[in-house]
């Protein structure tokens, strides 16, 4: 097996597509990058590898810290990073979850074929753009008071069900049924709630979007059948998170942990790895606050789903249930959760941190919704506007290799500032329209920043995921209409 050197760091190939940074110096465990050499060239082009090494210094990291095939530099902990940390003697780190708690994706099926939508793309993209708040200061589907925000934080999509924004089936097809049991609104600051009042049901901006897509390829027909997917079918993908409320939760706890646990912070190489020791009051409080922000994000995506159904109803003059608009699945890719995993032959409870990484549990795992337990958990991987997206199922090897995780997207290769120099939003939009992809955004700069050319090759990311058995491709989709902030 070969070695790979980058930025003074040597990686040893331990098997095909698995590269290890051996434990040395201050590292608390080895680190592994899951990538082809082509992806490793991109991953090693910034500070990703150093951040991955740093992540091993979090107390209690089990086996090895991991970087998924779409990994890139983040703050403190790399994006695409996964760490299983002992929940009894380790720690929990807000920076290893990310500011956008429960940033995630959901996919809504329809019974429309692509031919049913052709000719309606402009009307549909305009209807969706008008119906769904996006951008900075664009408001929310529900603009409300703190008491309602607290209800959302405590109850998640159960609140949306009671208010008529969700169906019972929406809940049973969502990770954790759209409600974290430990969530506690009292652990969330007043500031976070203030920010959450006017953003409930909004996309935001950056890389978040709503996309109408068509299924172009089915790779595993039996699994696709279980997921209700078929070639040429129209689906909707929604990508956003917990908005300002979640960002404030992370900001608050990074600072509180910094002040309360300076001894631990002094031993870490990056302040954005600030961590609360497992069992400490702050660890428990952050876990409850994070759970509440997770609930907020699920309600956020649920309200957008509600408005999406209404937009389709208006354009296609049919009830959402008659259009078959059912939730396929909703999965987080910025989260830490207590999960039981096999470590050295023993079941151990871990805080599994996934920052820009998606849970990918195989068939049989009890956390997988009943509807999919025989085939494996759906994993939704959004790609760029020009390359399409994927639906995977959790791979059989994911529990052994990645604490049940895989990639979360294509992963950026180009900075936003560079993208705005290299691309012009109107040109990107016109090029996409030439490919029958209709894009509408609050800002032309956002389209330039999210141009297809700024992302890694999502096909290669998926190829590595499949080769390692951590996520198997089920279907591929291609955009029809895209709205963003």
């Amino acid at each position: 097996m070969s070695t790979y050197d980058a930025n003074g760091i040597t990686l040893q190939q331990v098997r095909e597509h698995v590269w290890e940074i051996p434990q040395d110096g201050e590292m608390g465990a080895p680190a592994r990058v899951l990538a082809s050499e082509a992806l490793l060239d991109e991953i090693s082009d910034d500070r990703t590898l150093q951040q991955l090494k740093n992540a091993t210094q979090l107390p209690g990291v089990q086996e090895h810290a991991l970087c998924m095939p779409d990994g890139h530099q983040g703050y403190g902990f790399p994006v695409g990073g996964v760490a299983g940390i002992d929940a009894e003697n380790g720690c929990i780190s807000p920076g290893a979850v990310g500011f956008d708690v429960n940033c995630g994706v959901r996919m809504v099926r329809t019974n429309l074929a692509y031919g049913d939508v052709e000719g309606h793309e402009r009307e549909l993209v305009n209807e969706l753009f008008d119906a769904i708040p996006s951008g900075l200061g664009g408001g929310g589907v529900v603009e409300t008071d703190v008491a309602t925000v607290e209800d959302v934080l405590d109850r998640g999509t159960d609140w949306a069900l009671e208010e008529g924004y969700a169906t019972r089936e929406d809940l049973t097809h969502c990770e954790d049924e759209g409600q974290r049991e430990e969530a506690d609104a009292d652990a969330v600051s007043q500031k976070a709630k203030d920010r959450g009042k006017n953003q409930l049901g909004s996309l935001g901006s950056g890389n978040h979007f709503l996309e109408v897509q068509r299924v172009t390829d089915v790779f595993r027909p039996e699994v696709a059948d279980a997921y209700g997917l078929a070639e040429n079918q129209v689906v909707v993908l929604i990508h956003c998170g917990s908005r300002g409320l979640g960002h404030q939760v992370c900001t608050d706890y990074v600072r509180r942990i910094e002040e309360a646990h300076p001894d631990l912070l002094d031993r870490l190489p990056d302040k954005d790895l600030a961590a609360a020791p497992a069992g400490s009051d702050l660890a428990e409080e952050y876990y409850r606050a994070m759970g509440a922000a997770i609930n907020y994000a699920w309600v956020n995506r649920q309200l957008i789903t509600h408005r999406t159904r209404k937009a389709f109803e208006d354009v296609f003059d049919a009830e959402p249930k008659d259009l078959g608009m059912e939730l396929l699945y909703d999965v987080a890719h910025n989260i830490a959760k207590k999960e039981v995993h096999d470590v050295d032959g023993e079941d151990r409870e871990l805080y599994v941190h996934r920052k820009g990484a998606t849970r990918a549990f195989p068939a049989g795992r009890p956390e997988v919704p009943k509807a999919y337990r025989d085939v494996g958990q759906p994993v939704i991987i959004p790609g760029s506007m020009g390359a399409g997206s994927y639906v995977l199922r959790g791979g059989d090897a994911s529990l052994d290799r990645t604490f049940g995780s895989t990639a979360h997207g294509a992963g950026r290769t180009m900075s936003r500032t560079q993208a705005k120099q290299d691309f012009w939003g109107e040109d990107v939009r016109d090029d996409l329209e030439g490919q029958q992809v209709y894009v509408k955004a609050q800002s032309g700069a956002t389209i330039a920043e999210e141009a297809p050319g700024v992302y890694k090759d999502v096909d290669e990311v998926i190829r590595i995921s499949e080769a390692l058995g951590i996520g198997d491709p089920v279907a591929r989709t291609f955009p029809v209409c895209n709205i963003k902030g």
Partner: protein
Amino acid sequence: MSGEVLQMPFELRDHTADVAVAATGDDLAGVFAAVADGLAAAMCEEIPDSDGDGNIERFSLSVAAESREALLYDYLAELIYERDVRIVLPVDNEATIRRPTTVDQSEPAASERIEAGPIESESTDDGSTNGGSAADRWLLDASARGVALSSIDAREVKAVTYSEMALERTPDGWHAYVVFDV
């Protein structure tokens, strides 16, 4: 990065998925305000001289923290919070800083534009400035002009980070480097 010459008080710098601001100032308060103006520029390329109604309205804020770096972090986080609750883009930022009374007042302060102690009040906003006595903390008073978000083409910065944060003296004053999560 130390000692570099910037053409403006701030510049936006490349970062893989986020954005960074490099800034300089003649004194500590000046570099804080320059980073804040960089934060506004990261969200909006064309900032108007007044809000959509032709009005110019400023708002004030104060934060306290245990170190200079923490004060910068809390200041920028507070601006992001104010952006979301006031629904305005904070621009044309101004700041003054008071050092803790426990810091040796004989330390050269000419380049800090600091009003030496005593600090009479401390921010008690939950979640960000717990612990420590008032005398131990750095205090910032700031103001910004709020431009209505509805009147501009702006994109979201989610949060300030500590990642690669630099705040250091230079022969000409102060230099700062801050990465923001987008």
